[in-house]
């Protein structure tokens, strides 16, 4: 077997969130994996060298929650466009949600997605399969066969499993296969007609509110079921301090529980909805500034494991509607890192801590080999300038849908190079920001 020509990413500020180590040095890449890493890595005669002075080099981001329109809604997003958006944002692995048409509840459809992704998508696609057939919350899907087909986790995507008996059995059954369940924790009966955070601001806008209890009641129930069954459980996104307390207590008890937060709930609050901006209509909803601060605290104390983009492409006909009638969701793959770096720039979160939640922890929870700068790890890497300022122009987004909550926002931090399995899939240095190798 012949080897590729080695590639050296040199003079970078290496940030390995897995070990917390930061140093100046390089990463030598060959045959899709990291051959060597550290300050000692020297220029080899035959290696192609990329100078990364002034840039951070870190493991590529692993986004545990993104909705992609393929199959079934390719006008909103395809595996190809999602891959390009991800690469531009520094996301090297996407865990795709099963809310497609048809639903990813059949091993043959998982196989289809994996093949389509292999041929069309420049980043890694790791599909999460449906937890229940048709996402109906009634009968569990073929967890064993789906896992064999390549599903990395099981979830009803944007839906909660309201029937506790179904959830109990699914957790029990999944445990036999060491399968991870991702759950959207939002009790639809408590959400009812609600469209934004319940409270003063909703009262002023005249919009029906969603209480925090829609989340905490479901989450608390799930903690009891995890305790009963021992199944591995990940709360997809929490949004308030009470939820963080619940997860923290469960972890202290030793339950196999982890949780995530949407970048939107870390970077924005309900006031950003302003004048009924439907691109900020989300599930879970943007909450009060106190909740946002609680999320940052939970990120720092380790209660929050993961930050996700919750990338959810919606088009004009689902978003250009009165606020209450618009669909939930915002695109996020391309802005995930920039928006998250706001927390670093505000001095609230350290860069390694942030990258840990964006890369190392997702890899650990899902059992992926990446998420670390380590010899032998897959060469899924990003090089970025954490301080590069820009104003987001949604027309520049690679996503087929443009429903970003950060349109015209001032952001700092831009990806320069994204590498997947040793191959550069995005390179901003070659001219315009649209450049793509």
């Amino acid at each position, binding site marked *: 077997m012949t080897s590729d020509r080695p590639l050296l990413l040199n003079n970078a500020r290496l940030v390995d969130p897995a070990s917390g180590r930061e140093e100046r040095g390089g990463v030598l890449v060959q045959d899709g994996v990291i051959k060597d890493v550290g300050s000692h890595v020297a220029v080899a005669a035959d290696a192609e060298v990329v100078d990364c002075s002034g840039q951070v080099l870190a493991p590529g981001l692993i986004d545990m929650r993104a909705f992609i329109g393929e199959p079934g809604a390719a006008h909103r997003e395809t595996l190809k466009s999602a891959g390009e958006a991800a690469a531009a944002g520094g996301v090297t692995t996407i865990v795709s949600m099963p809310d497609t048409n048809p639903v990813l509840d059949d091993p043959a459809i998982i196989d289809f997605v994996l093949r389509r992704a292999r041929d069309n998508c420049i980043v890694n696609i790791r599909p999460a399969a449906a937890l229940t*057939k048709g996402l109906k919350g009634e009968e569990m899907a073929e*967890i064993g066969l789906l896992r064999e087909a390549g599903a990395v986790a099981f979830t009803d995507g944007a839906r909660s499993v309201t029937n506790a008996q179904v959830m109990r059995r699914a957790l*029990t*059954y999944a445990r036999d296969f060491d399968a991870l369940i991702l759950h959207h924790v939002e009790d639809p009966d408590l959400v009812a007609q609600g469209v934004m955070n319940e409270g003063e601001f909703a009262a002023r806008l005249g919009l029906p509110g969603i209480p925090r209890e829609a989340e905490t009641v479901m989450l608390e129930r799930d903690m009891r079921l995890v305790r009963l069954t021992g199944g591995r459980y990940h709360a997809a996104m929490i949004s308030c301090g009470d939820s963080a307390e619940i997860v923290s207590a469960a972890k202290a008890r030793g339950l196999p529980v982890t949780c995530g937060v949407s970048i939107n709930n870390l970077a924005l609050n309900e006031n950003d909805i302003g004048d009924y901006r439907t691109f900020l209509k989300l599930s879970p909803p943007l909450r009060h500034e106190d909740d946002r601060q609680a999320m940052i605290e939970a990120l720092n104390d380790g209660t929050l494991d993961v930050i996700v983009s919750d990338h959810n492409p919606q088009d004009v006909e689902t978003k250009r509607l009165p606020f209450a009638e618009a669909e939930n969701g915002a695109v996020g793959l391309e802005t995930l890192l920039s928006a998250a770096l706001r927390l670093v720039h505000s001095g609230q979160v350290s860069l390694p801590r942030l990258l840990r939640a964006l890369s190392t922890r997702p890899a650990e929870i899902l059992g992926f080999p990446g998420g670390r700068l380590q010899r032998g790890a897959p060469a899924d890497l990003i090089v970025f300038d954490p301080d590069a300022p820009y104003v987001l122009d949604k027309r520049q987004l690679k996503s087929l849908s443009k429903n970003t909550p950060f349109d015209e926002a001032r952001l700092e931090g831009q990806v320069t190079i994204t590498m997947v399995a040793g191959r550069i899939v995005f390179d901003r240095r070659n001219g315009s920001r649209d450049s793509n190798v």
Partner: protein
Amino acid sequence: MLAAPIRSAYSHRFKMNTPRSVFPHRHLLGIEGLSPLDIQALLDLADAQVEVSRQVEKKKSTLRGRTQINLFFEPSTRTQSSFEIAGKRLGADVMNMSVASSSVKKGETLIDTAATLNAMRPDLIIVRHHAAGAVHLLAQKVDCSVVNAGDGAHEHPTQALLDALTIRRNKGRIEGLTVAICGDILHSRVARSNMILLAAMGARVRLVAPSTLMPPGIERLGFETFTSMREGLKDADIVMMLRLQRERMNGSFVPSVKEYFRFYGLDQEKLSYAKPDALVMHPGPMNRGVEISSDVADGAQSLIREQVEMGVAVRMAVLEALASHLPNR
């Protein structure tokens, strides 16, 4: 535990009449409560009955003049016919009472039914009921002997006895064997009776099932549990498969037939994890392609047909053993 109280005058009489009874119980309500000696005595008796059934002349007169009622609240083909044949071979008058035509459908309570039947002075009542404990309740209300032919997910003692007889005749012993009971343990009275019997007779009992079909807490009763067929069947002498009810196949307890068969259905590959001379059993009726493949069910290692034959012999043995306690003997 045999819960049925025995009226003192009555028990006094049969003790006097049968001083050397091989089976010191008036009813057979479960395996629990039987001693290893009781079990052995029934198996020895059954061994002899096998020969009777293989003769041209299959009729004995042990139960001549006796009345046996088969009272089945749940549909059953093989157990009911097995009890019917057993009773008839012993010379009893056997009457089958099926639920469809009985007053149970008209709302009569179980206890009223028991009292009504009791007034007809039967000698033996064979009962199957969908509720665990129902046969015990009925046994308290009648004067004759009662045999449990399956109560809910509780016990099915004659099935466990016939399985034990089949094992003993093929392996020469029960003690020291490793028996893997696989499938829907949660809802299975067959599994429960077999677990108790096999453990009492010194076998090593393993339970193999997806966790959704395993009774929570069962490992605390001293049974080894496995969720993988590969591990559970390793070096097993006997692989005992259980029937999976159709209503439990489609997403409630297991996702689908396809997935269940893939991970828990006994095919040649999974059987190869067991000892090379391992034997396969199934209480029937089988779901081919669900819990067992046809080539295994019909293969050289299968004892499934023999189990049916042993069923008649064991039921004859049970009826005969109980008959020794009947009054006016």
